[in-house]
């Protein structure tokens, strides 16, 4: 790998940027979608607080998806067309879900009061549609767009699991951003969704070799198996950390509630790297490598300049924005 030329490195850099953007999207919009999924369980004023807690962020969070898909589009156009045509229907479902969720932010408070309940339901329905569709897309992508019964069952499994994982993330976010009765509710929501999510994650990991035999050799060959051992172990550790906090309400009151969110993020990050390790260097499993999908080096260079300048700036002001809106969520006012 060290002997690679710049022309070989560039596509990898863009792959890393795309991966970072998609991982950031899944975590950041994941908690937004999770909060949306939890919405029907709250009373009316709690709904307002929940949505206010994500109000200043969701727009920028969703933009990471545009960056991720944007890099796929501009740097790997061959893969973009192939992947998105294969995922045509779930992509459309996800987009309609994101549209409904996105406009409901504004419509629920700006439309006449009698429509608020309708837009609350649209908020939930949009979040559910978008997160299930994303799960389906992920599953379908891992199976190499296998349309057989096994492939479909696998996709369906992830379509159910991802919303559960988002719900945990959303509950973790609410534990950090709210207080009092709503915070206690968030703890119990996290508690309820924890085991189903954990079991589903283990089931998916167990089923992956079935849909993808080549992955087995990557993970269980000697001596990699020892180097990779920390990944599932850390996952298990993070899982039980979450469990420990949500079953000990005094820990949340003592200010350790952030552990739920942080540990769930850790699970997402590890799952992401596990997946990336399984797939690399293909961009469409078994069909197209990252180098085959990329545009010319000269054009990648042009985009690279932009990425090198703007990506650090984007990260800096994302951090800045989270500092500005730090603390517990309250009523949001325009000004």
């Amino acid at each position, binding site marked *: 790998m060290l002997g690679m030329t710049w022309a070989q490195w560039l596509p990898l850099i863009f792959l890393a940027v795309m991966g970072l953007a998609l991982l950031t999207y899944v975590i950041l919009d994941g908690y937004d979608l999770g909060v949306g999924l939890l919405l029907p369980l709250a009373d009316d004023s709690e709904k307002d607080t929940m949505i206010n807690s994500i*109000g*200043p*962020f969701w*727009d*920028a969070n*969703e*933009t990471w*998806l*545009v*960056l991720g*898909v*944007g*890099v*796929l*589009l*501009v740097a790997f*156009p*061959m893969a973009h*067309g192939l992947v*998105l*045509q294969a995922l*045509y*229907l779930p*992509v*459309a479902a996800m*987009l*309609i879900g*994101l*549209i409904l969720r*996105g*406009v409901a*932010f*504004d*419509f629920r408070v*700006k*439309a*006449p009061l009698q429509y608020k309940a309708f837009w609350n339901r649209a908020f939930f329905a949009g979040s559910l549609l978008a997160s299930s569709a994303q799960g389906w897309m992920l599953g379908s992508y891992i199976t190499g767009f296998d349309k057989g019964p096994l492939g479909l069952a696998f996709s369906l499994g992830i379509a159910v699991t991802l919303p559960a994982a988002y719900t945990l993330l959303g509950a973790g976010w609410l534990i950090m951003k709210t207080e009092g009765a709503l915070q206690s509710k968030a703890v119990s929501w996290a508690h309820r969704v924890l085991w189903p999510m954990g079991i589903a994650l283990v089931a998916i990991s167990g089923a992956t070799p079935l849909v993808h035999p080549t992955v087995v050799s990557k993970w269980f060959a000697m001596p990699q198996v020892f180097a990779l051992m920390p990944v599932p172990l850390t996952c298990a550790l993070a899982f039980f950390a979450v469990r420990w906090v949500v079953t000990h309400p005094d820990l949340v009151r003592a200010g350790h509630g952030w552990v739920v969110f942080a540990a769930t993020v850790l699970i997402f990050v590890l799952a992401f790297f596990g997946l990336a390790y399984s797939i690399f260097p293909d961009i469409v499993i078994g069909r197209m490598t990252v180098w085959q999908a990329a*545009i*010319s080096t*000269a*054009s990648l260079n*042009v*985009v690279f300049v*932009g*990425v090198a300048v*703007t*990506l650090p700036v*984007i990260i800096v002001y*994302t951090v*800045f*924005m989270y*500092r*500005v*809106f*730090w*603390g*517990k969520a309250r009523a949001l*006012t*325009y*000004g």
Partner: protein
Amino acid sequence: MDLDALMLSRIQFAANISFHILFPTITIALCWFLLFFRIRLVRTRDPAWEEAYYFWTKVFALTFALGVVSGIVMSFQFGTNWPGFMEKTGNISGPLLGYEVLTAFFLEASFLGIMLFGRGRVSERVHLTATFLVALGTTLSAFWILSLNSWMQTPAGYEIVDGQFIPTDWFAVVFNPSFPYRFAHKLLASALTASFLIAGLCAWQLLKGTTTNGTHKAMRAAVATAAVVMPLQFIAGDLHGLNTLEHQPAKVAAMEGVWETERGAPLTLFGFPDEDAATTHFAIKIPKMASLILTHDMDGEIAGIRSFGDGHPPVAPVFYAFRIMVGVGSLMLLVSAFTAYRLWRQRREKRITLPRPLLWVLSAMTFSGWLATLSGWYVTEIGRQPFVVYGLVRAGEVATTVPPPFIGLTLVAYLLVYGLLLVTYVGVLKYMAENPVKHAPVPVTSAGLGKAGV
């Protein structure tokens, strides 16, 4: 017309970009209006500016959200509907789209949170800067995306190697021949759309007796802008037309309904173009005017539609859309000039009074900018057909291979959602105008904001 994958893809993509463009067309200029209100507030400390800012920020947030969600759809539909486009032109369109996402979208989306909700959490200077950056971001967004669109109309700075476009001169790519005209035309269109939206809703508030002090400020700013910009828009449009004649003569032939190549071509004011018979029925014509306008010579030669073989666009939609655009523009010119004159005479009054019929006209024209903008885009985009990259790549070569029923199904779903959103959007604007929150909320102080200390 066959409803095959190509045609369905076209309709779906057109429906999506038509829906999307409605909202950026408002926000690009509205954000500069907000910055203006904000600066006037800082300068004069007149709370009326605060009320104007507060009300229109809410409209901006709503409009921006609709622009964001419909814009995300576009980044996917390039791949789902036109996979071949990026495969052929990826080396050029990739970087242009990439810069759009990087520099502009993030600037907008990230600072929008601070602009909308950050008052009291950040200093006035940071807040003003955030507003400026959002305005700059929306304009930069338009810059990059219009550069790509213009390149598809008038490609430059490339060579074709193995069927792929390879950039040879980036300056020529970005500043391709039609780009300066299109960019100016679009920014002016945005200014007009936002002006008429503001004037229309303010007129509605005056009619319904639900004004705030901000209504009067916003109305004056909007009408003054419209009256200045509208004549400029006619000049920009004329220059854009001359540029199109040079680079895309088939589009101009369809716009003017000129069937055969002729000298001293007449200007067709209206009629019913019939492509099969290659004639315009019941045409009302002014002799030699088309030649005069387009070539600045009474006997100048205009190429006819028939001289382009099958490489010309469908005539009727381009012909009608062009007339709608010019017609609406002319009406906007008259109304804005007359209203500006009335307001000029009462410029020393604190509150404005306009005759009710004029208020009704302004209200009726709240969304006239949308009509003119959409018809303008139909002229230029349908006028580019059958090509995706003018003269070089046809749409049929790059279309999707997804089964037509899938496209039809999702098209219906999108249309239902868009219809719901459009009705709700207009309804909410009306509701907001009738129930403006009279007082901008007192900014929250730093207490209880955790570690916000910025």
